[in-house]
Structures are given as structure tokens and as C-alpha cells.
């Protein structure tokens, strides 16, 4: 499978918008959208957990080319905390209850729009990475925190949580 690219990111944005999916880019893919220079393999999406959004999400994923069985669609609909998709045109992680972020609504109110992409605020990205307490996240946190400083200096209009 080829690496995720700009065209696919735009497809997510456009298809999710047309299907009215409420979601935010989170994790390293979110940070990269904000301007953080680093590498990653997949896109992490923080998705609002609600029956209506679950149905919209399944519709959008199928439109994007993810081959979901009825059972898999049901698991997404019911809003499992974490779903890993590798059965489509690119790898996608769906996170319904990320560590370190209390409610979708809170993150939504702090979101940043980058060329139409809804992205978690850098503070939410850091909070979720810090809360996982994983080796790979711990290693990336000092540089991410430095990026936060840089980003806040250059995005004065962005809301401070």
C-alpha cells in the first residue's frame, strides 16, 4: 500500500464533510497538519460518538473505498473506543475516546481549521500523547512541546484552552 498523501487527506475532508461526519485530526497526523515536521504512517481521527455520527461515518468510509462488512460497520456504529482500519485505500485509526481528552465537544470547541481540515488544538494533541504514557509518545513529547511554543507564537488568534 502506498503512503497516505495530500489527495487522500482531501478526500477524507470532502467526503466526511458531504456525509456530515463530526471528526478531528488527532495525534501526529494532526500535528503535521498544524505544521509539525515529522513522519507518520497513518491518519488518526477523533470521531464524535453518537448514533447519527456513526451512521454517517460508515457511509463516508464506504464511499472512500473501505471494505466494511456489516459486522465491522456495526462495531463502528456502536462506537467502540478504538478502531483500526487497514481494509481501505489507506490506513486509518478511528478514536472515539482518546486518552487525555474528556469530551469530543471540548476538543471541537478548541479545534483549528487548516485548509478546511478540522484539527485538534496542539494542547489536545499533546494531552492525548502524554496520557498514553507509551514509549514512542514519551520520546516525541519534548520536540512536540517545543513545536507548541513555536506554533502559539505564530498563531496568536488560536484559542488557549
Amino acid at each position, binding site marked *: *500500500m*502506498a*503512503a*497516505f*498523501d*495530500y489527495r487522500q*487527506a482531501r478526500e477524507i475532508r470532502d467526503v466526511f464533510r458531504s456525509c456530515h461526519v463530526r471528526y478531528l485530526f488527532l495525534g501526529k*497526523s494532526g500535528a*503535521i*497538519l498544524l*505544521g*509539525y*515536521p*515529522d*513522519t*507518520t*504512517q497513518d491518519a488518526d481521527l477523533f470521531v464524535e460518538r453518537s448514533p447519527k455520527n456513526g451512521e454517517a461515518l460508515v457511509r463516508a468510509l464506504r464511499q472512500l473505498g473501505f*471494505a*466494511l462488512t456489516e459486522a*465491522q460497520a456495526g*462495531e*463502528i456504529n456502536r462506537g*467502540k*473506543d*478504538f*478502531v*483500526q*482500519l*487497514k*481494509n481501505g485505500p489507506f490506513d486509518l485509526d478511528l*478514536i472515539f*475516546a*482518546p*486518552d487525555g481528552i474528556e469530551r469530543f465537544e471540548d476538543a471541537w470547541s478548541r479545534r483549528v481549521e*487548516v*485548509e478546511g481540515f478540522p484539527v485538534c488544538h*496542539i*494542547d489536545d494533541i*499533546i*494531552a492525548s500523547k502524554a496520557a*498514553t*504514557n*507509551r*514509549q*514512542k509518545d*514519551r*520520546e516525541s513529547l519534548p*520536540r512536540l*512541546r*517545543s*513545536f*507548541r*511554543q*513555536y*506554533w*502559539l507564537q*505564530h498563531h496568536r488568534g488560536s484559542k*488557549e*484552552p
Partner: protein
Amino acid sequence: MESASQESPAIPPEWLEEFEAAARRPLKTRLRYAFIQTYKPVLDDAPFRAFASMEEYRRWCETNLPDWLGYGRV
């Protein structure tokens, strides 16, 4: 939650240079440089996985993935 009022150490010059270079690139270019595809054993071997809780997912990672992938908790 991070706070801007916390005393922040200076950004290391080499990182600052990287942030500034990235800021000069259009989003399309940034994404082209950022996303890579490498095989991750076990993790990449199933087309679909769903976990009822993040705790279940973290435990699954610790039990099933090689340590060197870095998914284990500290």
C-alpha cells in the same frame, strides 16, 4: 493540559530551524514528506480491529506487539 503561562525552555536551534522550514512549505508538500509506509509486524497483519476500550487496546499492544515498536507503556 498545557499552559502558555508555564515557564517554557528555549526551543533548541535545530528544532526551530526545522519548524521554520516546515512553515515555509505548502501543506501538500508537508504531507508528502510526512507520511511514510513501512511494515509494522502484527499491527499491519489484520485488515480490521476494534477495541471496546483504550485500556483493552493498550493491553493488546503490550501483549502482542514487539517491544521495539514502542507501543508499550512506560
